């Protein structure tokens, strides 16, 4: 019972801390002139540098989806359905979620380690000491950059994923290109595309915000920073799964 009580207390403590940070971050985001240069630098680093790994993961996920659905459905349902399955899976789930998971490891962990190191080496205190607001200087540009870069990355992942699914199907399944495209068009709704991109923006905010939150709470030396990095990845992944479930319900409600 005591352990459960301590767990609840800790959860409430972090929820309150995250709420306060979120409030200050949102307030800071209302003044883009103050952070747009820092945001663009972060966006370049998060976005452009992530493209290769996003492309590889998206290509593999698209190809695997078409292979797996071909294996499951050949001879049981019309073969064009593979085009629908690949498109639906990539646009609503695989594109946004796998891209976000890649960025949890690449960006969330980096932000956690970076800010954690800044805390334990007193750089964050130094910012405060010179009259600067660490949230405005460190958190706002990163969260804004996350919101900015995830949707285009997901759009690239969608394009590559569907393309790889098509190529995989062409090379290994008894399906023609026109059948695959027919399946794709049959499923395709604008809303699914937009919803995937909105989801990407939410994921972008989540990954960067959690990286910042755990980073700013780092303590201790190298061990503390290591723990912070792990926390950023674990908490980021859990939060993404949570948002994915919640947003899937919204998709059903509005789609």
């Amino acid at each position, binding site marked *: 019972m005591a352990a459960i009580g301590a767990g609840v207390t800790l959860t409430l403590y972090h929820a309150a801390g995250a709420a306060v940070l979120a409030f200050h971050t949102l307030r800071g985001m209302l003044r883009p002139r103050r952070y747009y240069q820092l945001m663009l630098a972060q966006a370049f680093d998060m976005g452009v540098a992530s493209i290769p790994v996003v492309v590889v993961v998206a290509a593999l996920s698209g190809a695997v989806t078409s292979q797996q659905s071909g294996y499951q459905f050949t001879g049981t349902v019309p073969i064009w359905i593979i085009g629908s399955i690949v498109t639906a899976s990539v646009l609503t789930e695989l594109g946004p979620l796998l891209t976000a998971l890649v960025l949890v490891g690449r960006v969330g962990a980096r932000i956690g380690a970076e800010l954690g190191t800044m805390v334990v080496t*007193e*750089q964050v205190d130094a910012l405060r000491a*010179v*009259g*600067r607001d660490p949230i405005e200087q460190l958190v706002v540009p990163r969260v804004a950059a996350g919101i900015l870069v995830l949707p285009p990355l997901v759009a690239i992942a969608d394009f590559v994923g569907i393309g790889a699914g098509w190529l995989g199907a062409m090379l290994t399944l008894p399906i023609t290109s026109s059948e695959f495209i027919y399946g794709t068009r049959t499923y395709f709704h604008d809303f699914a595309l937009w919803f995937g991109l909105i989801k990407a923006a939410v994921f972008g905010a989540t990954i960067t915000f959690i990286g910042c939150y755990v980073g700013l709470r780092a303590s201790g030396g190298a061990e503390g920073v290591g723990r912070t990095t792990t926390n950023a990845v674990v908490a980021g992944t859990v939060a993404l799964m949570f948002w994915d479930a919640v947003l899937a319900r919204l998709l059903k409600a509005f789609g």
Partner: protein
Amino acid sequence: MIELIEVSKSFGANVILDKVSLRVEEGETLALFGPSGTGKSVTLKHIIGLIEPDEGDVIVDGVSIPNAGRSELKRVRQRVGYVFQGSALFDSMNVEENIILGMPEQRVREDKAGCHERAMECLRLVNLERQVADLYPSELSGGMQKRVAMARAIAGHQAYLLYDEPTTGLDPKNASIITNLIAHLQEELGVTGIIVTHDIENAFRVSDRVALLYEAQIHALGTVEEFLESSDPVVQSFVRPDTESVPTA
């Protein structure tokens, strides 16, 4: 003027400061020393509001720091330069950018050329060449990093300078250079300063008064001469550590 009025601070069950009162007059330099872990750095951090006291008040430039609003606290912080123990330079910024960070934000936005010139002037004041401006902290020695941190601390024409163990981790030669630099800055800029240090010899060279923080309280406060002549065994053990064992809190 900097004044701590009966400031108390605990971390959990660990009492760090217990009704500590201290007053540093305009233009004065005070050296604060004591055993490790007695709250010297915590005392400094109270002065710029990085730590809030559990009880008591901290007055800087006529402003009560624990009760100050965001903008008032920001204004005070821009009047106070803080040299951190580990220099706390920003790894991602070069030396010039680090120094410019010590200048008011509005000036940085509106007067880039002026900020550049001021950064170069600060480099001169801390005896560093202009060429250092483009280097990153990882390319500097420990002594140079301290000097850049000092340049950042004075970049905004701060009226108060707080040094957190400025000579710790430096070899005797570099420690002496930094101490001379502190003395030079006090003379040239006429600022009010507090130096937290273990380096008693160097601290005595640059301070007008000395305070000993011991067992969470100011155990002794006086001029350098008064400290040197004190018969208090705790003071003696710090002033002449080779003749007495250093008491631990």
